[in-house]
């Protein structure tokens, strides 16, 4: 089963990379772009009996290693086989 973890800086933390990309997109003419936040994306294949188990495992991994709770938040998605 595949879990996806998205890690981004918390909304209260300035994201200088996102701001730089925002400026670059605007200079390309994308005036409609209002904001950009850059983050990290992990695809994790886990041997789990259920989507719920995969989800809680991935969340535990994010808490312990993938995200730094001081400055980052994360979101977990689980891809269930046969339902995609």
């Amino acid at each position, binding site marked *: 089963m595949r879990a996806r973890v998205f890690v981004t800086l918390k909304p*209260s*933390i300035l994201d*200088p990379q996102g701001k*730089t990309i925002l400026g670059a997109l605007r200079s390309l003419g994308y005036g409609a772009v209002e904001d950009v936040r850059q983050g990290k994306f992990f695809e994790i294949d886990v041997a789990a009996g259920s989507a719920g188990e995969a989800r809680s495992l991935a969340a535990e991994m994010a*808490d312990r*290693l993938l995200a*730094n*709770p*001081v*400055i980052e938040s994360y979101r977990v998605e689980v891809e269930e086989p046969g339902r995609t």
Partner: protein
Amino acid sequence: MKIAVAVFPGSNCDHDAYHALKHVVGCDAAFVWHKAGDLGGADAVILPGGFSYGDYLRTGAIARFSPIMARVVEFAAAGGPVLGICNGFQVLLEAGLLPGGMRRNRGLKFICEQVHLRVERTGTPFTGRARAGQVLRMPIAHGEGNYYADPATLERLEAHGRVVFRYAAPDGTIDERWNVNGSTAAIAGISNAQGNVVGLMPHPERACEAALGSADGRVVLESLVEACAAARGGAARTAAGGGGAAAGEGTARTGAA
């Protein structure tokens, strides 16, 4: 007396620290590989600068799970002096031994230059020989040294005098113009509640000889040697009274180191 210098894959200031300790300050120093099971009976530990594990994931995020870090956490909890320099500071933050986190430098550039620090606190094993308000010149070399603490953490640090160094003008003035990387409250270094664990982004070990541009960093290492000698001299490690409180501060991590 012996001071351990931890070596992680990617450490690159370990030899600088060893050289400054052994050949400039004149105390015994020993490298401790990150997979070592103990600290070799050292009186203090330095986590040196560098790019442990290539800075993969986040700076210091992988190194904090190295076997030696479990020993460092125990050593710190027992009141032992621990100094994290640059990447070592980042490792201490990830390990939860110090509160807060690191962001990319304001301006996104890797900054390699001489800066001035004002000593804000002298009551640590690393600043005992410094004067409050003393200005030290030493280099920085980092891309992620933009220290962040949330308002509640910052208030706690300031209220208890745990900001040890701040980026300053050459005359010691604190001004946002001299806050080279955009850190919260111009913080360059902090301590834990007990004061025995200190992390800073600038490199005192690279500023121990006039030939290198500054010898101001010596006061940090000489303070450490003096503190270790005092502890050896029978003075009780009063900081040990804090017990395990030194561990697990600052982050809500559930992971065991």
